[in-house]
């Protein structure tokens, strides 16, 4: 099925046939009418992804989007590629089977905070552990949208929802911390409304060979409106957002007047941006410990001091590449399988 393979300098896409024909956003827009609520953050993400795909120059037919169930999981219907809107929480498992058998495909998973972290949490952490060559976009609106507004595993503690009239009781997951604890090789966070940032993260995620985990803060204007206001509002965002860039000092604030450094007892702490010992971000470090420490800077309740960008991006052999290598090796070593010889075995007898 594969043909022209041009190396576009993206290991994650090596083996996926490219095309020379120019592509536009329209090429990736399906004929299906989009059915999200007016104002939903999902629209912004869809537009950005559709706008970004042409940059990769992949053959449209070799791109697949697989989702679970949830508002966000309607995503594949709107991409003019191959796609599957599967069942709740199972997209990473389904994508694993597809990616392991089809190195010529660019496989994307779209999931939500409920789909990916509640019912689908186990498949998600195992996919990251195996490092299957997938890009996972987790739309985190900190609520269950499609089922009309129950709290989710990322909702702040004490959240009042239909299912928690006196407030939710459990501490939310920090998806980035969880991913790092699950041996993920690529972990990033971005925001629905920041087209440029989202695009840059998508680019890096696509380039990464292995499981790229991308948490996207997404506004549900019906059931959790303004959940990320502090990170979007002109007046607050500069103070609240910490933009991580590889090999750059970790500074933030209107005029980078704040920074992050390590204190005497070894914990990360905020400091003046001018301090000499401001931490320089290293997304490629083999040890995920610093990335993990960065993931803890954000206040789980208010989201103050939330780092966005690429926390971790390291190389590790992917599950699918190794699987294919074993097949190849077996064939090379013992020769292609001979069915007749196989079923005959060595202990036979003949009756005339």
């Amino acid at each position, binding site marked *: *099925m*594969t043909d022209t393979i041009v190396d576009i300098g993206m290991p994650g896409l090596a083996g996926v*046939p490219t095309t020379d024909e120019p592509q536009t956003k329209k090429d990736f827009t399906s004929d*299906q009418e989009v059915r999200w609520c007016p104002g939903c953050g999902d629209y912004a993400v869809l537009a950005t992804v559709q706008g970004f795909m042409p940059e990769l120059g992949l*053959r*449209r*037919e*070799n*791109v*697949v989007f*697989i989702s679970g*169930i949830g508002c966000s999981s309607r995503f*594949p*219907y709107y*991409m*003019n*590629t*191959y*796609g*599957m*809107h*599967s*069942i709740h929480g*199972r997209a990473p*498992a*389904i*994508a*694993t*089977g*597809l*990616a*392991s*058998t*089809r190195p*010529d*495909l660019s496989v994307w998973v779209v999931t939500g905070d409920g789909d990916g972290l509640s019912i689908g949490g*186990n*498949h998600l952490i*195992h996919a990251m552990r195996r490092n299957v060559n997938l890009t996972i976009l987790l739309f985190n609106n900190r609520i269950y949208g499609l089922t009309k507004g129950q709290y989710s595993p990322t909702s702040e503690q004490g959240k009042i929802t239909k299912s928690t009239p006196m407030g939710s009781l459990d501490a939310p997951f920090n998806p980035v911390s969880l991913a790092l604890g699950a041996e993920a090789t690529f972990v990033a966070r971005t925001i629905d409304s920041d087209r440029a940032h989202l695009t840059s993260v998508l680019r890096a995620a696509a380039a990464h060979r292995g499981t790229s985990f991308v948490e996207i803060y997404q506004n549900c204007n019906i059931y959790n409106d303004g959940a990320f206001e502090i990170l979007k509002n002109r007046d607050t965002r500069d103070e609240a957002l910490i933009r991580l860039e590889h090999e750059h000092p970790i500074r933030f604030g209107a005029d980078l007047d704040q920074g992050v450094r390590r204190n005497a007892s070894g914990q990360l702490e905020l400091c003046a941006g001018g301090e000499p010992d401001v931490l320089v971000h290293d997304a490629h470090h083999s040890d995920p410990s610093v990335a993990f420490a960065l993931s803890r800077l954000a206040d789980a309740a208010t989201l103050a001091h939330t780092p966005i960008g690429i926390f971790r991006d390291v190389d590790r052999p992917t599950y699918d590449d190794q*699987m294919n290598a*074993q*097949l190849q*090796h*077996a*064939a090379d070593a*013992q020769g*292609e*399988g001979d*069915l*007749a010889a*196989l*079923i*005959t*075995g060595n*202990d*036979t*007898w*003949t*009756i*005339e």
Partner: protein
Amino acid sequence: MSARQVHQLDRVVIRFAGDSGDGMQLTGDRFTSETAAFGNDLSTLPNFPAEIRAPAGTLPGVSSFQLHFADHDILTPGDAPDVLIAMNPAALKANIADLPKGATIVVDDADFSARALKKVGYDGNPLEDGSLDAYKVHAVNLTGITAEALKDFDLTRKEAGRSKNMFALGLVSWMYGRPIDGTIRFLESKFANKPEIRDANIAALRAGWNYGETTEDFAVRYEVKPATLPAGTYRNITGNLALAYGLIAASKRSGLPLFLGAYPITPASDILHELAKHKRFGVRTFQAEDEIAGIGAALGAAFGGALGVTTSSGPGIALKSETVGLAVSLELPLVICDIQRGGPSTGLPTKTEQADLLQAMFGRNSEAPVPIVAPASPGECFDAAIEAARIAVKYRTPVFLLSDGYLANGSEPWRIPAVDDLPTIDPAFATAPNHQNGGDPEFWPYLRDPETLARPWATPGTPGLEHRVGGIEKADGTGHISYDPDNHDRMVRVRQAKVDGIGVKDLEVDDPSGAAKTLVIGWGSTYGPIGAAVRRVRRAGNDVAHAHVRNLNPLPANTGDVLKAYDTVLCPEMNSGQLRMLLRARYLVDVIGYNKVRGLPFKAQELATVIKDVMDRD
């Protein structure tokens, strides 16, 4: 052969029994191979505890392997052993009840100490208190003699004693004139890099043979002539191995790469283990984090154009049920193998049962029909795998294959088919648009083949056929999301019609005289016991018919006519009457059930009696 007196026998049932750690399964396997190589027909029944190694010398720790071999074709591992090899008091205690009077017992009396006896609840020593007078007992210090025989090896007595199973095998091989060179070759390769162990085992095996040859203890040898089976090349095969080979064959004959998504579970795990060995055949095995991921990955692979397979047993199949429903909705090929075991819940993991038929039929939300095939013998697992794949690919549907613990681990001689005689399977992938919208060509993923009602299978990578599928109801044809009431009703009917319309072979009836008034109908692994029982009833001069269902959904077109052609219909099942219910509902025939759920296959004699009783009713 020694000048020892030789008795001719037409059939022998022998059972090896000992601690889980005594290697009884291996011993049985080897004796089976020798017997197969010798050319007898045979049937085996391994039986082991769920614990890996329950403490030595205890009843729960006893593991056994039964083999039935004969000079004619046989159908079951035998009702009762003619010979019991017991490696300790526990093995004797646990199995004695199954022995008919007059049976032969070879027992290792190395440790019949008061302690050992008490451990299993013997008050006295059965070897001395006369309680075994009704049997031919050979009390031999297998452990001691083996240790003696190996004293020149640099092994502790304890280590040397471990070879006693090989000594026993040698002895029994001598008794029945089995060739042991196959076993020697086996030991040479198995312990290639443990020469000390290898040589010790071989020495023990030979010592056992010579022990029979030289001691006076064994006055007679027995001879069971080779069986005359249909011409061909044979091998011995277990159900799980045949199933694994069948899947590889289906992959080869369809040109679809095989992808197995599975999570280990007894008694299905060996299929995963076997397929994992055959990467050179392009077989991908994925040990998933759970059963849901296993079937999910298989479905994802199927979407990509692979032959997707998932294997499990009852509890795991229950977990897969939601995803089976998705596969029904997506209409993608998928083979789901359920190696049934005792339930409910964790139940009896290492025992057999056939109680998942209704789970396979109805175990998911809403109307989601799935075809079901069920092999009737270990060897048939090969054909069933190919048949399941054929239906899955041709009709774009998930298919259940129902095997069970008895077929999975039991073995029989299998006539090796010629590869070219195997059916070919045409994936018939969609490669071009199948609809015109005004001038523009379009691809409609749910535009069906008018004859099979199968939808086109367009895999990613095919230009121009980009499309999305999902679990929400789809518009007939375009496949777009549709909440239209009439469309939903139509789709429900179409999915049902597709499965109902699958072409399956007519039900064959074995009714030699044509005069039978009673029909015995069964499915799955009861084939052997029912067949053997029917023979007995006939030998006793009665007419009885036997039909065995291999396609359980859809049922063969002639099933109703067959049932209605008999006054009495009996359906023995290792469940509470599942096929019986389906037949009664569908054909309104008063099918009688005989249902035992003991975790063990039926005995031929038991069924023969039941059949006779039923016949005498009217």
